[in-house]
């Protein structure tokens, strides 16, 4: 498999996170950035919206310029209802859990925080278990 694109993409994610942290003075996990727009504090909203606008522009630009990975496929058997439930769980879980792949994963582990490592291992293990159970229930990846 090609590991150059994942490495370059990852490096950009790390660089963007570091720059956002240095400029904002806050830990810029995506779920936290979004959550504190939903429940805003005065003077702490503008940079969050700016970052998300940048994220969507950067993604759109990279997709438009055909940079890196070009694939997009829905995993077997996942209809829209699955994405609706997944959205609720991801929103609820990242808030209850205090972070997501970027907050705990990149920023937390990148600053050597032991608690972030624990939470990252927990959501990865839960993800692995979910995919395993899904595949057992729908053998061959056929829609259940």
């Amino acid at each position: 498999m090609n590991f150059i694109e994942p490495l370059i993409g990852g490096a950009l994610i790390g660089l963007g996170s570091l720059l956002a942290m240095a400029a904002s003075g806050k830990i810029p996990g995506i779920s936290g950035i979004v959550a504190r727009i939903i429940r805003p504090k005065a003077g702490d909203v503008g940079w969050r919206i700016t970052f998300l606008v940048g994220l969507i522009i950067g993604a759109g630009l990279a997709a438009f310029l055909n940079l890196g990975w070009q694939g997009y496929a829905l995993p077997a058997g996942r209809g829209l209802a699955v994405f609706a439930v997944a959205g609720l769980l991801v929103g609820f879980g990242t808030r209850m859990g205090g972070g997501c792949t970027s907050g705990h994963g990149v920023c937390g582990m990148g600053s050597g925080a032991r608690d972030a490592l624990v939470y990252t291992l927990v959501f990865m293990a839960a993800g692995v278990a979910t995919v395993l159970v899904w595949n057992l229930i729908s053998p061959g990846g056929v829609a259940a």
Partner: protein
Amino acid sequence: MKLFLILLSGVLFGAGLIISGMTDPSRVIGFLDVFGNWDPALAFVMGGAVLVFACGLMLLRKTGTRICATPLPDTSPDPVSKRMVIGSAIFGIGWGLGGFCPGPALANLSTLRIEALLFVPLMLIGMFIAQRTFDLDR
């Protein structure tokens, strides 16, 4: 200047998500499919991101560099909490179902993927419910 740098960091982050392939839900599911047809790409993405972040942070700390005169936030770890372990597990289940975590779901808004257009508003509702349930982000 501060907002321009933050816009730039968002652009880097969003472009990184697309380039790395992590906006493709089948690739994320492929990484989580450890006992099936495993795709290690996400490990390289996470590794690259953590490495750059960690080295850059060390450099900023060593040289005492401040960007826009802003001090770096406190990143010292807290004790592991039961609530956050359970929350992270719930997040992991949702992640394994759809192959979207918050960043890639938002990035896919730019390409108007119908899954993302559905996922993101429900994610916001989920966050809102958790904030009210546990009185968070006040």
